[in-house]
């Protein structure tokens, strides 16, 4: 409530370091959105069910509405804003969601993308059933999930292809589609 209650935290989000002063009760989702202006992370239920606010914290997916900002002190965080390359090249998951019509209203999408991103790191060759399990912590009210599963499947293929070409030409960076996004 008062300034004296606030605590200074330092966290790295999408490779950039931020220092901010927050109340101990402030949710990480609110810190990201209101303090850091990173509104790509959405808040759909604030009780840990819908998954819209999913981000990765120190490499693991978490619901940012169930974490206090102060708990993220010194943490390494990745949000949907950090998925594409700095030059705007889309991440294969983003590319695939666009291609396969994996979103409609787009509100749950950032959370789904972050869950799927971690999921594919853990399981690069998933079956459709495994993909369904992998994204089952994210609710979507528009798509009925079918196209999301298609998209994750497609992204897995793209990532594997990238990895292969990376191995073949060891000094090359991950090959992105090269498509630029104008926003």
């Amino acid at each position: 409530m008062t300034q004296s209650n606030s605590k200074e935290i330092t966290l790295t989000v999408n490779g950039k370091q931020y220092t901010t002063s927050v109340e101990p009760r402030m949710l990480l989702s609110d810190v990201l959105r209101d303090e850091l202006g990173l509104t790509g992370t959405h808040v759909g239920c604030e009780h840990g069910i819908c998954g819209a606010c999913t981000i990765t914290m120190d490499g693991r997916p978490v619901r940012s509405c169930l974490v206090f900002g102060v708990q993220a002190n010194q943490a390494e965080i990745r949000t949907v804003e950090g998925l594409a390359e700095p030059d705007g090249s889309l991440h294969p998951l983003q590319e695939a969601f666009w291609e396969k019509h994996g979103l409609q209203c787009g509100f749950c999408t950032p959370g789904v993308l972050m869950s799927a991103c971690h999921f594919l790191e853990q399981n690069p060759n998933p079956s459709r059933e495994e993909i369904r399990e992998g994204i089952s912590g994210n609710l979507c009210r528009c798509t009925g999930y079918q196209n999301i599963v298609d998209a994750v499947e497609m992204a897995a293929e793209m990532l594997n292809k990238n990895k292969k070409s990376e191995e073949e030409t060891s000094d090359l960076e991950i090959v992105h589609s090269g498509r630029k996004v104008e926003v």
Partner: protein
Amino acid sequence: MTIGSSVKRIEDPRLITGQGQYVGDIKLPGQCEAVIVRSPHAHANILQINTEKAKNLPGVCFVMTGEDLPTDLDPIPMRLAPNEALTKALQYPLAKGKVRYVGEPVALVIASSRYIAEDAADLIDIAYEPLTPITDVHKSILPETSLLHPEIGSNDLFIIHSKKGNVDELVEKCPYVLEEDLYVQRHSGIPMETRGLLATIEENGRLTVYGPTKVVHFNIQILAKLLKKNIKDIHFIETDVGGGFGPRGEFYPEDYLIPYAALKLGRPVKWIEDRLEHMKATNHSREQKHHVVVGFDETGKIHALKDEIFVDTGAYIRTHGVTVPVLTQGMFAGPYDFEALEFITHVVATNKTPTGTYRGPGRFEGTFVRERVIDMVAKKLNMDPTIVRERNLIQPEQMPYSNGISALGQVVEYDSGDYPQILERARLAMKWEEFADKKLQARRDGKIIGLGFAMFVEKSGLGPWEFCEVEFAENGRLICKTGLADIGQGVETALAQICAEQLGIPYSNVTVLHGDTDEIEKGNGSFATRGTVVGGSAAWYAAEALKQKLLSFSSELHGFTKDELDIKDEWIIQVSGGQKICPLAQIIVECQKQGIELREKYTFSIDHMSYPYGIHAAEVAVDSETGKVKIEKYYIAYDVGRAINPMLVHGQLVGGMAQGLGGAIYEELKYDETGQLITGSFMDYLLPSSMEVPEIDIEILENSPSPLNPLGVKGAGEGGTVAVAPAVANAIVNALDQYPIHITSLPIRPEQIRDAIKKGIVTNEVEPL
């Protein structure tokens, strides 16, 4: 060809990179945040409200209660199906003296942050005197029950009676009569983004509101009227919207309170609905009790049907008036040719959240009842349920067919359709002929499986009109301004495709503007599957007018007659031979140089709705231990007249099915006898996840283009939802045909299935004694 192609959406790049701008994402300098204090009681008198402590909390800037509302304030009016008799049951933005449902707004608190506003909300001290809650429609209309809106004189707020032929006479003559009670539970759209608003006062004194959607041009009129302001002094801006589905975008108490507070405070006020708040504050839907009487003969032909319906409309009449009850009647008969029909619908008030529309309003409810009844008739006659359907279907040569019942001010007249053909398709797709053998084999393997069908007719393209304005901007992009709203359905892409088709340009060169009342002259908005049908037709004609202008100019410039020219792939071409005359870009620049305005407007009017139709079929496996239902195969065939973008139509159907499945098996806004909502969080209100929604086979048919619009489209928004519950229910009953199961209410609970299996086999048809 752009129309008919599954092109990628122009909406997506922003949304997949976190660059979308939903109302909660906007932060204005000096903004403060609002919290609504809501009634914890279903029915109570408000004795006293003490706001002193809240007002004294540092950071709090405004607190108001019902007593502080302007004394001459009108209640929130009806938008659709307005009805004089019901005006006495409308809701005021804050409760005055009495609360009638859990979640009713009682006070508004505004502070420098939402955290402080929530602290302050806890400090507001309200003394209530609880009254007897009314939670059941039948109890509500008993003479001894107290009246929720005494000026109306009854809790049976409104009765709608419609008929075709003489049901009683025909039923009497029928050799078979079936009488059943069926129930559809309360549930709703539940978009992933809760509601939200941000109101601010501009330097010139105008009020700007971010967050309205769906029907912005209508809602701005309501707000102007309630605030007693000139409509020109208000500006609505639609942001990105996290799902519509019916409830979202209607005018709610907060749509008055937040702008009102911003005007009072002279600074931006933001309100983002909490999820727990959403569950009890935003429109509920669907809850209906049906008492059906059907007369039929030994061939399965149904001659007469009578349905007395009790709609639990909740504590107040909201913006939809009696839309849902009216549509339930008008669309009840579905694809069947019944000689006599009679409906008596009671719109009953209870101490529950007020209701409105949800995807397929009236059709989800009516289709469940009708398609269950068809299977019950088949069961009684020991007939194949698809044959009973076949024998009652309207034949293609009967089109256009009037079903004799009115809905939304017009007698329902199906414009076109081949219903027998779509039934046959589904039978083939599901291998119905072979299913009895498959089921028997499964039974031998210890598996219980079943297959069920449900047919439906949808309605779309509600008028009276929609508006579009197209203009080539200086940079050569086409700006398309539409009166429709973007609620996530892909309207930008569909309109871009329609304009691109006319003007021979890439659809990605079209920018679609919507939902901004300063930018867009007029509009009716996005609801009732009207977007592509009515708004798409307006875009088609506006773009055509612009095309004619360009061709006229080209013909003069290059010495052709206008009829000799066309536009293709960004070139002016000669129709015969396809010879390129001149790049379109050059003509545009030339026009602009000469001061020729490349802008056209069109208002497309339409009197009659279109009627897309289809069929759902479900194959399910039932777990005999737990009663859990697994959908093994799901099929939808839907004739949409014409698909502008088949990928988007497909997406609408799959997504719609997921919502229908929620309504069939998982979702319920359940109240206890004290009027408390006991499924008010996502832990209790079960939205289907990726584990529950199956893979769905979709056949999009374009066999019956609508004759009522230039595109032939019939819309695709709601057909995925409306027939899921009966298809699944019929499949479960088919699976358990040896067991005593009778599904008449939703959601279908695993315990009902498990109980039936536990009771054991009751027929000896398959396993002889």
